[in-house]
């Protein structure tokens, strides 16, 4: 403890010159996670905070503000004072899907994108006792009857991704919403639904033990965990989807602060220890700067708009 303090003091003296140039952050930075503690968004942000405190002379505190499918916490981050001390975890559901369904007090335009540090890849899996066990059989089955595809909540990211795939592939599915992904998973392993969208980590464990069978990966290229599972793209369906783990903030931060934050998240995303921990958790660690992150969000929003229109959910809660 004393040793740590001494090193800290020594470092502080050494970097005092640099610190004077830009005295941000002078106090702890708060990051609002719009979900309950313990989920993948929350845990990954805690790993970010851990790396941040290791790499920089500052503190990062995670604050959980769940509710409304992430809408409440995201609103808090977007409407926070734009001084760089209150930021948010940028999640796909509340930022691009919720505003289209309606009932939020923010839009995508109100969001300042700081940086994306990981993507959560998605795998469509066949559940126990499903009448299909590979991509071709799935499509074939879907031509005659609607497969029941479970998701983690009505209007949530993986309902949209399943429906968007169905739309692109020209099949129709029956979306079955559950209260959270672990409920959907339970129903899938129990054989109460035909298929669901899962993360590679959970799909891996379940397929090793024969509880689920991977059908296809929603990426451009095959992934390391599932070298034998095709992508939709190689099957001739131009469809990719992943959800994101990133940092956002309110619009209107001064340029110096924003630049500092953008640089900080880039350094965190490239830190070896950070990469390892997050990879072990099943995330796909990658870095995209604010601009690329925003472009990704806007593209996802366009896809979502089409899907919601078809489902008659566009502006439903306005």
């Amino acid at each position, binding site marked *: 403890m004393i040793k740590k303090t001494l090193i800290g003091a020594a470092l502080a003296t050494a970097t005092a010159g640099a610190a004077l140039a830009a005295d941000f952050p002078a106090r702890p930075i708060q990051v609002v996670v719009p979900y*309950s*503690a*313990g*989920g*993948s968004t*929350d*845990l990954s942000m*805690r*790993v970010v905070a*851990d790396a941040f405190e290791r790499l920089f002379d500052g503190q990062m505190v995670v*604050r*959980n*503000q*769940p*509710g*409304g*499918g992430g*809408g*409440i916490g995201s*609103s808090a981050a977007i409407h926070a004072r734009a001084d760089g001390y209150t930021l948010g975890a940028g999640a796909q559901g509340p930022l691009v899907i919720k505003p289209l369904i309606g*009932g*939020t*007090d923010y839009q995508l335009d109100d969001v300042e994108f700081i940086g994306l540090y990981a993507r959560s890849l998605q795998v469509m899996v066949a559940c*126990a006792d499903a009448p299909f066990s590979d991509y071709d059989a799935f499509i074939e089955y879907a031509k005659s009857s609607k497969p*029941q595809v479970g998701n983690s*909540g*009505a*209007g949530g990211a993986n309902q949209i991704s399943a429906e968007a795939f169905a739309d692109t592939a020209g099949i129709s599915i*029956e979306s*079955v*919403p*559950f*209260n*959270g992904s*672990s*409920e959907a*998973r*339970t*129903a899938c*392993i*129990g*054989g*109460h*639904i035909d298929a669901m969208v899962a993360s590679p*980590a*959970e799909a*891996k*464990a*379940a397929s*090793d*033990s*024969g*509880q689920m069978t991977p059908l296809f990966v929603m990426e451009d290229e095959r992934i390391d965990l599932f070298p034998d599972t095709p992508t939709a793209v190689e099957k001739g369906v131009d469809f990719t989807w992943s959800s994101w783990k990133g940092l956002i903030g309110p619009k209107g931060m001064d340029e110096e602060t924003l630049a500092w934050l953008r640089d900080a998240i880039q350094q965190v995303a490239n830190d070896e220890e950070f990469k390892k*921990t997050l990879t*072990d*958790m*099943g995330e796909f660690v990658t870095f995209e700067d604010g601009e690329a992150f925003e472009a990704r969000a806007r593209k996802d929003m366009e896809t979502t708009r089409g899907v919601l229109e078809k489902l008659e*959910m566009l502006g*439903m*809660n306005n």
Partner: protein
Amino acid sequence: MDTIAFLAPLFEPQVLLTIALGTFGGLVIGALPGLTATMGVALLIPLTFGMTPVMGLNMLIGIYIGGIYGGCVSSILLRTPGTPASAATVLDGYPMAQKGAAGRALGMATIASTIGGLIAAVVLATLAPQLAGIALKFGAAEYFALALFGLTIIASLSGDLLKGAISGLLGILISTVGADPISGVMRYTFDIQGFASGFAFTPALIGLFALSEVFTQMERIADGEEPIKSVSGRWPTRAEMSESKGALIRGSLIGTLIGIVPGTGSGTASWISYNETRRASKTPEKFGTGYAPGIAATESANNAVCAAALIPLLALGIPGDVVTAVLMGGLLIQGLAPGPMLFQTNPDVVVGMFGGTFIATIFMFIFGMALIPLFSRILMIPRRLLAMSIVVFCFIGAFSINLNPVDLYTMVGFGVLGWGMQKFGFSQAALCIALILGPLLESNLRRGLLQNDDNVLSFISTPITLLFLGLTVLSAAWPIISRAIVRNRAAQHQ
């Protein structure tokens, strides 16, 4: 053998100390209203990053077990359910403490929690793979039937059937506020974003039980009534123990079974156990008046759920409740994927967690018993000061869960509602049960209809649904049946 080798790391001083700290921390977290076991586990997951799997996971299990137990402290002493799991303990725990037996009530709760925890841990260690299959049998129809059965508790818990039904239906109506579980349409939110997920459950419970009680007490204080309470003692009397024997065993078994069924959890288990114990009792009228078996039933059930919820998690990789869902995150961070393979790939971790469950339960017993005199001294605080501190805790607790200001209005609103219900003889327990089971009932009814092309017959298609629906009919008709039995006996005696 191997098992002994796998258990050895548990007895390293460092590991034991970590489990003890986790259990103690959990106990404190659980006892504070508004801090739940789920939050405790989630917030401490980052601490386990650098630990060995057995050490880190057992610390989390300690927090979980301690947290569910700790909830009974504030339920019994302050009528404030520290966690939703111990809401049912309020029914007999609080009156018992008010009668001057706070120490014995806490002692009973501690013993019951320990017995429930140990019985479920034995089941976990011996039958996990065999029983885990039950978890997979539950589809929409089965959950619907279970929830419907749970709701019949309302009929037997409320003295006045009509008032009980009104409370229950009001609870179900309240539970429909927020996003529709199937279509996502907002219902009754009046464009207030804070209500998008409906009324938050814990703030509602805190208002319903704790704040309403403060209002009632303020009336009494105004009437100048200030009884002196004795809080001594911690071991239940021999008579209390022998009365509670059946309750303890029944509660432990009900808790174990409900714990295995994913997505139900300790709140449901403790209410069902309370009701079944009351139904089996020869003196059902004593329940709700500060009767020790009432505490035994709820606390043995909710702690049995802890160990039992680990069964589907470890054997199948599906979490039994919210806390185990968070625990699953903890496992994944250690690079361990829960599921059938875990027993083969990492038997040391599985056996270590089995062992940790026992150790944490024993620590819980020791800490619980040791702290009783300290806890019960809270009641020595003058009633006026205590009432005011409870109000402060109500606000802190309601806000700290989601940091959502709307939850404060929820808490106050339910406080006023609870006070009014108490005054006019409506059952707060019935409302609470409906709040727990309403969403389970509705979403599974809707999901089942969606999956079966609106065919209602699918709800009576499997043995499990038939079993629960049969129990539902029996349970709803029980007051009539029991009256008939009593009349028959009376006729025979003549």
